[in-house]
C-alpha cells in the first residue's frame, strides 16, 4: 500500500506527462506483479463491486470525530471528494508513529474483498481499525477503493505507454492486451508484460480507432475519390468477434454486451472463426435504422422478453474488417479491408454492410447531408481509403462530419459546485426556458465554457445568489446561454416533459436578456423534427 501511496503522490505532484509515465514505469518495474496488477486495475479506472455503502463510511467517520451532520455536509461541499473529506477529518485522531504495512494485493484479497461477506457491525470494526492504523494518504487511497473509482489524473494512454516501456513491447500491443475484462492477478500482469502471446487473449477486442470532428471545410480533404463516405449511425459502436467457437460483442466502453443482443450473436456464429468486425449496434427494422431512443429503451430492460426484442429489433451494421482467418488486418489500407468485408458479408445477409454514400462532389455530399436527420443518422463518417486502422483518436484519416446540432437559448437558474479539481467552483448549471410567464428548468449542462468564463460566472453566481439549498444556489434569472443538443425526447420524468440529448453550452449570450430566451413550446416543436 505504501508503494501505491508513493506512486499516487508522485503522479499527483506533477503536471508533466513524461514525469508521470516515468513514475508509472518505475512502479510497474519495482512492484511485485500481483500488486502491480491491482494498481493497474485501479489506474485504468476499474472499480470494485460495491463493498459497503458510503453512508456507512460517513456515519463511522462522524462517530469517530463527533462531527454533526450539518458540519459534515459543510466540509463535503467545500472539498467535493468523499474519500478526501473522510481522510482529512480522521486526521484529527491519534495515529501510531510506525504504521503497519501490507502489500496491495493482500489488502485486496485478504481485507477488502472479504468485507462483502461481513455484516455492518463487523465491517465497521474492520474499517475503523484500519483507519486508526494508517497514515492519512493511505487512508485516502483506502477510502477511494472503498467508495469506487480511484482517479489519479492519468489517462489510460499514459498507463499503456509506461507498461510498453517496461515490457519492451509496442504500445498498441499492450493496449490490445488490456482490452476487455481481466482479473487482476500475478499471472495476468506477467502475461501482460511478457513477449509471448497467450490463448487467454481470444476474447479481447482491438482498441477502437476513433474519428475526430471535422472543423475545416470538407474540400480541404482533397479529392473525394480518396475517401469512403458512410452515414454516421446513431447507435452503440462495437466490435463483434468470432474466435475459437465463441462470439463476443464489445461496446466502445469496453463492456461485454454479447448477452444483450442475442440476434446479433446468432448472426455472428455463422461467420468463419477468426473474424473481428468493427461496426455499430442499432435498433433496426426493415433495413432501416430506428431512433436511438428505441435502442435505449431496450438497453434499459432487465429481461429481454420476446416483446422487448420485437419492439426494438437490433442489428450490427459492419464498418470494417479487423481480423480474418485469425490474421490482424489493421495495417492494410481501408480500401482492401473494405473489399474483403464486402466479399465476406455477401454470404451473411443478417450482418448488413454499412453502405458507402455515393456523391459526385463535396458540394453534392453537403446537400445529401441535410437529409441526415430524416434518416436517423448523425451525419457522415469520412475515412481515407488508404488509411490503416489506428488506435485511439488520431487526427487526419478519419473524420466525423456531423449535422448541425439543435440550439436553444436558456436562462441560468441553479448552480452546483463541481467535483475534485473544480470543487470550489460553480461549474454545473441548470437552465430554464419560458413556460408562459414562468421559467421552467429543462436541462443541466456542465461543459462548454472556457476556464476564464467559468471563473467569471462563478463570481457572478456568488454575487447574485437568491437562495442556498445545501450546495446548490439559485441565482437571479439574468444570464442567457445558447445551448446545443443532439436530440430531444418526451420524458415523463422531467417536469418540462422533455429531455435533451448531449446538452452543452455553446455560448454565453451576454447580448441577450432573459426575456429573449426560448419557450417550452418552441422546444416541443423540435420533438417532431427529432422523432
Amino acid at each position, binding site marked *: 500500500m505504501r508503494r501505491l501511496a508513493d506512486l499516487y503522490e508522485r503522479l*499527483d*505532484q*506533477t*503536471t508533466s506527462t513524461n514525469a508521470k509515465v516515468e513514475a508509472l514505469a518505475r512502479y510497474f518495474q519495482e512492484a511485485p506483479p500481483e500488486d502491480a496488477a491491482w494498481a493497474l486495475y485501479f489506474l485504468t479506472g476499474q472499480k470494485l463491486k460495491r463493498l459497503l455503502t458510503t453512508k456507512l463510511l460517513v456515519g463511522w467517520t462522524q462517530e469517530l*470525530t463527533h*462531527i*454533526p451532520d*450539518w*458540519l459534515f455536509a*459543510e*466540509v463535503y461541499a*467545500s*472539498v*467535493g*471528494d468523499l474519500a*478526501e*473529506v473522510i481522510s*482529512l*477529518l480522521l*486526521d*484529527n485522531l491519534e495515529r501510531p508513529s510506525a504504521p503497519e504495512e501490507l502489500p496491495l494485493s493482500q489488502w485486496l484479497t485478504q481485507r477488502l474483498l472479504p468485507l462483502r461477506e461481513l455484516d455492518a457491525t463487523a465491517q465497521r470494526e474492520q474499517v475503523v481499525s484500519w483507519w486508526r492504523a494508517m497514515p492519512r494518504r493511505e487512508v485516502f487511497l483506502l477510502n477511494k477503493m472503498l467508495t469506487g473509482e480511484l482517479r489519479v*489524473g492519468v489517462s489510460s494512454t499514459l498507463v499503456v505507454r509506461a507498461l510498453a516501456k517496461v515490457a519492451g513491447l509496442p504500445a498498441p500491443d499492450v493496449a490490445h492486451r488490456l482490452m476487455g475484462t481481466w482479473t487482476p492477478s500475478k499471472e495476468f500482469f506477467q502475461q501482460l508484460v511478457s513477449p509471448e502471446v497467450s490463448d487467454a487473449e481470444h476474447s479481447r477486442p482491438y482498441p477502437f480507432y476513433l474519428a475526430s470532428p471535422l472543423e475545416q471545410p470538407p474540400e480541404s480533404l482533397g479529392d473525394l475519390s480518396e475517401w469512403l463516405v458512410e452515414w454516421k449511425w446513431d447507435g452503440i459502436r462495437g466490435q463483434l468477434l468470432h474466435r475459437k467457437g465463441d462470439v463476443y460483442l464489445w461496446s466502445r466502453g469496453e463492456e461485454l454486451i454479447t448477452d444483450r443482443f442475442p440476434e446479433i450473436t446468432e448472426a455472428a456464429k455463422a461467420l468463419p472463426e477468426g473474424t473481428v468486425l468493427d461496426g455499430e449496434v442499432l435498433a433496426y427494422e426493415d433495413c432501416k435504422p430506428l431512433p436511438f431512443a428505441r435502442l435505449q429503451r431496450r438497453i434499459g430492460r432487465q429481461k429481454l422478453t420476446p416483446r422487448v426484442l420485437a419492439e426494438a429489433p437490433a442489428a450490427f451494421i459492419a464498418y470494417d474488417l479487423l481480423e480474418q482467418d485469425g490474421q490482424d488486418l489493421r495495417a492494410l489500407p481501408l480500401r482492401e479491408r473494405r473489399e474483403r468485408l464486402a466479399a465476406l458479408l455477401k454470404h451473411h445477409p443478417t450482418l448488413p454492410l454499412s453502405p458507402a454514400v455515393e456523391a459526385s462532389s463535396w458540394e453534392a455530399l453537403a446537400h445529401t447531408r441535410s437529409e441526415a436527420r430524416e434518416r436517423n443518422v448523425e451525419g457522415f463518417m469520412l475515412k481515407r481509403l488508404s488509411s490503416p486502422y489506428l488506435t485511439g483518436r488520431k487526427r487526419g484519416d478519419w473524420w466525423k462530419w456531423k449535422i448541425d446540432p439543435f440550439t436553444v437559448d436558456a436562462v441560468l437558474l441553479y448552480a452546483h459546485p463541481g467535483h*475534485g*479539481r*473544480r*470543487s*470550489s*467552483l460553480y461549474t454545473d448549471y441548470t437552465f430554464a426556458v419560458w413556460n408562459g410567464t414562468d421559467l421552467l428548468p429543462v436541462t443541466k449542462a456542465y461543459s462548454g465554457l472556457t476556464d476564464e468564463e467559468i471563473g467569471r460566472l462563478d463570481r457572478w453566481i456568488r454575487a447574485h445568489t437568491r437562495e442556498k439549498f445545501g450546495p446548490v444556489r439559485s441565482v437571479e434569472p439574468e444570464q442567457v446561454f445558447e445551448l446545443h443538443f443532439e436530440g430531444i425526447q418526451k420524458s415523463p420524468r422531467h417536469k418540462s416533459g422533455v429531455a435533451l440529448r448531449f446538452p452543452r453550452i455553446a455560448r454565453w449570450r451576454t447580448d441577450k436578456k432573459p426575456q429573449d430566451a426560448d419557450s417550452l413550446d418552441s422546444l416541443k416543436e423540435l420533438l417532431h423534427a427529432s422523432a
Partner: protein
Amino acid sequence: MDASVSFQARRPLITVTPHGLYCEPGGFHIDPWRPVERALITHAHGDHARTGHQRYLGTRAGEALLRRRVGADSHIDALEYGEPLKLNDVTVSFHPAGHVLGSAQLRIEHRGEVWVISGDYKRAADPTCAPFEVVRCHTFITEATFGLPIFRWDDTREVAEDILRWWDANRAAGRAAVLFCYALGKAQRILAELARLTDRTAFVHGAVQGLVEVYRDAGVKMIPTQLVSEVAKGTSFAGALVLAPPSAGGSTWMRRFGEAETGFASGWMRVRGNRRRRGFDRGFVLSDHADWSELLRTVADTGAERVLTTHGSAEPLARYLREQGVDASPLATQFEGEAED
C-alpha cells in the same frame, strides 16, 4: 443569523459600523476598512491595515511594517506588547497574536468588561514573531479563516523539510523551484524555517525582498536572499529556489526561470482540489492562521462567555461552538483572512 441576538441587553462595547469595528466609549475603530480618525491596527496585512486614516496606533514590533504599508508620512503611534493606554475611559493594550512580525490581539477594558479582538492568529511556533499569548476576556472576537474540521496543520518543521526536499529534487533535475507565498509573513517564515536546515541563498521577487529587509532589521535569522531582478540577464535559474507572491504566477515575470516546478504554501493546500484547480505542482500546507483545533482551544483558553466569529468559516464555527454550549455568533466584517490566491 442576526449577530445582535446573542448580545446582552447592555450596549455592546464593540459594534460593526460601515467603517469597521468601532469602540464607542473609546472613540476608535479597529482595523477599519474606510478612512477614520483613529485606527487601532492589529497587523500590517492589507485587509487589516488600510491607508487613509488620520491617526494609527499599533505595536512597536509591527511599526516598521505598518509604515511601509500605509505610507511613511502617516501619523503612527506605537505601544509595546502589554503596555496599557487609556483612551477616554477605556484601557487598551496589544498582545502577541503569533500571526506575523508585530501582529497583535487587541485587549479593550471598559468598566470591568474585557473584550479581545484576535486579529489574525496562530498557535504554532514561528521563529519570525512573538508567540500567541492567551488573554482572558468576557467577549472574544476570533477570526475563523480555517474554521472547519478538515483544517489541521502538520508540524512546521516537517513542512520546511518537505520544501527543502522539493528544492533538492528540482536542483538534481536542473530545474528552478518557484514557491508562491504571501510576501508579508509567509515568505519570511519559510526563509527562517529553512535557515535551520540550510544556508543556501534563495531568490526572491521584489515584493518579498523589501519586507525581508524589515524582518532582518528586527533580528529575524533567515537564509540569504537575492533579488531575482538583480541577476544578470540570461543567467540560469536551474536549481534555484524562488519565492514570489501568487500574483506573479502566470505572468511574463515567470518566463526567465525556464524549466521550473511551482509550489504554493498556504493553508488552502490542505484540500487537493484547491491545488489542482490552480495547476500547482506542489502544495505545502503552511498557514499563519489557527487551524480548527487551535480555534477551539483558543476559545476555551480565553474563558470568554461570548464568542463572535469573523471571516472565512465564521458561521460554521459559531454554530459548532453554540452546540458545544458556547454563546457564539458570526460577526459580519470585511476581513479576508488567507485569500485563496
